[in-house]
């Protein structure tokens, strides 16, 4: 890697550029906090600014940022796997399966249809369907905490939809990764088959041997635990990539396999690393998008924003009503699910990395920029939306 860095520029310029990028992210993160929006859209903008055709294109550190961005995807996915235990993932399958299917159908379809209407290949259209499907569990979790809704009775509904999306990703990612890699229909079918087989084997093994795996990894020292978990994750992710299953899937499976104290501590230890490298990943995604392509991408992206905000709102509303939640609670559940973020970008990133030449990158950038900002805004006003939809009982004024 050192050789690669030196080849790309002097070590000094690499450090300077990298430091400047991280500082830029820090400033933007503070700004996002101040104005109350998630940091992802601002990180994307930073990427656009330092990319080809941006305000100040990076020269020396592109290679490093590319590697950093790969690590970012791996860490995002391992954290996603660590977030839920396999019991949590599969425990709700029976009760929440239907909500998961409705969510999938209602929110994949718009992206899929839009891709086909734009004249893209079916595979790229499926990727766009993935982009419009997944809510940002990172942003949703922050919003639930921020607005003090963790104890609310609609929150389990929201969480169960996020869990189902996670589970769907475990199937979706290997399929698209297999399709992106395979050349002909036979090869694609083989690589998809292998990928799905690996996923099933790992999930079954982790449910059976989870405690044993966890015990083997466990250690008293935080430093050793971090090294073990991080090393294991990168190794498995790399191996998965080598056998054409996609590093993202490998990392996700490592996360699912670990449980108990190791998962608990792993989350704590990996979080800061994930934040750094995920930031680099968003920048890298942004810098691959040609800012000149943003303007033509804006119209289809905004149409998708309108349609998929409505479908996601409908999904949340329906799921909450089904669980016996009142109108105000339904409005909160429906709006909090709107933001799309990190995983939409991960999915589009798979396509961009595989050399999809369409506007997938630029449309996704516009789309995430809009929904990552508008979603949180909408849920901030969920109370007002709920009041408007629910006539207040007699004698109780809205101001009370």
């Amino acid at each position, binding site marked *: 890697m050192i050789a690669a860095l030196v080849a790309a520029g002097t070590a000094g310029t690499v450090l300077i550029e990298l430091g400047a990028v991280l500082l830029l992210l820090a400033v933007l993160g503070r700004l996002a906090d101040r104005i109350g929006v998630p940091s992802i859209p601002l990180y994307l903008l930073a990427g656009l600014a330092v990319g080809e055709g941006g305000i100040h294109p990076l020269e020396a550190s592109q290679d490093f940022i590319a590697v950093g961005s790969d690590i970012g995807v791996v860490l995002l996915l391992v954290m996603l796997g660590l977030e839920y235990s396999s019991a949590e993932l599969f425990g709700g399958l029976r009760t929440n399966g239907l909500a998961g299917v409705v969510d999938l159908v209602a929110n994949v379809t718009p992206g899929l249809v839009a891709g086909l209407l734009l004249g893209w290949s079916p595979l790229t259209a499926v990727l766009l369907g993935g982009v419009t499907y997944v809510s940002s*569990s990172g942003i949703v979790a922050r919003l639930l905490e921020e607005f*003090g809704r*963790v*104890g*609310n*009775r609609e*929150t389990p509904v929201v*969480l169960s939809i996020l869990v189902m999306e996670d589970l769907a990703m475990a199937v979706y990612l290997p399929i698209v990764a297999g399709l992106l890699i395979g050349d002909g229909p036979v090869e694609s079918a083989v690589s998809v088959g292998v990928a799905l087989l690996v996923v099933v084997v790992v999930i079954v093994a982790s449910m059976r041997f989870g405690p044993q795996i966890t015990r083997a990894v466990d250690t008293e020292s935080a430093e050793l635990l971090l090294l073990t978990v991080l090393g294991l994750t990168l190794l498995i992710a790399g191996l998965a990539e080598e056998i054409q299953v996609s590093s993202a899937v490998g990392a996700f499976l490592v996360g699912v396999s670990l449980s108990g104290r190791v998962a608990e501590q792993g989350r704590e230890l990996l979080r800061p690393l994930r934040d750094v490298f995920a930031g680099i990943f968003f920048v890298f995604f942004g810098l691959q998008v040609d800012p000149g392509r943003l303007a033509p991408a804006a119209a289809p992206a905004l149409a998708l924003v309108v349609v998929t905000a409505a479908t996601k709102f409908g999904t949340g509303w329906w799921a909450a009503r089904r669980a016996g939640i*009142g109108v105000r*609670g339904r409005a909160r559940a429906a709006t909090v699910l709107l933001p799309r973020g990190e995983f939409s970008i991960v999915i589009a990133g798979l396509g961009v990395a595989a050399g999809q030449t369409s506007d997938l990158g630029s449309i996704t950038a516009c789309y995430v920029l809009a929904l990552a900002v508008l979603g949180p805004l909408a849920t901030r006003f969920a109370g007002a939306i709920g009041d408007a939809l629910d006539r207040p009982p007699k004698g109780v004024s809205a101001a009370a």
Partner: protein
Amino acid sequence: MEVFETALPGIGVRHEFVTRAGTRIGVITRRDGRRELVVYDRRDPDSCRDIVELSAEESAGMVELLGGSRVTERLGDLRHDVEGLSIQWITIPAAGGLAGRTIEDGQIRGRTGATIVALIRGERSIPGPGPDQVLEPGDVVLLMGTDAAVEAAERLLEG
């Protein structure tokens, strides 16, 4: 009093019930052991009017204040009420098992499903011991769960 348990994937677990006076209250147990006491809004029963964050220590204090140390007196009634509930006193051995280690180390609940509801150390009783509670040789531990869970936990504790 009927307590409802709801899993909060990625966060922890929530227990809730409605008091006789009609207030719905709940306790959220985070995965890291922090507790939150939530009081639901009467006008919008799905949302919380108040959230009280409690550290592990504060939760234990709260339990004392609410009379949790009488827990052992109630056990007889409880066993009567819940069919299939097994309650067992276990003495921590001088060495081996979980002697000298914390409850968290043993992951009793995660691995067996049984719960340590209280700990008696000499004259002192420790109701609802936290995960970082160290088990000392001679401690008497009160276990609760299904027959199989308690049996498995017994093996873990005694080594």
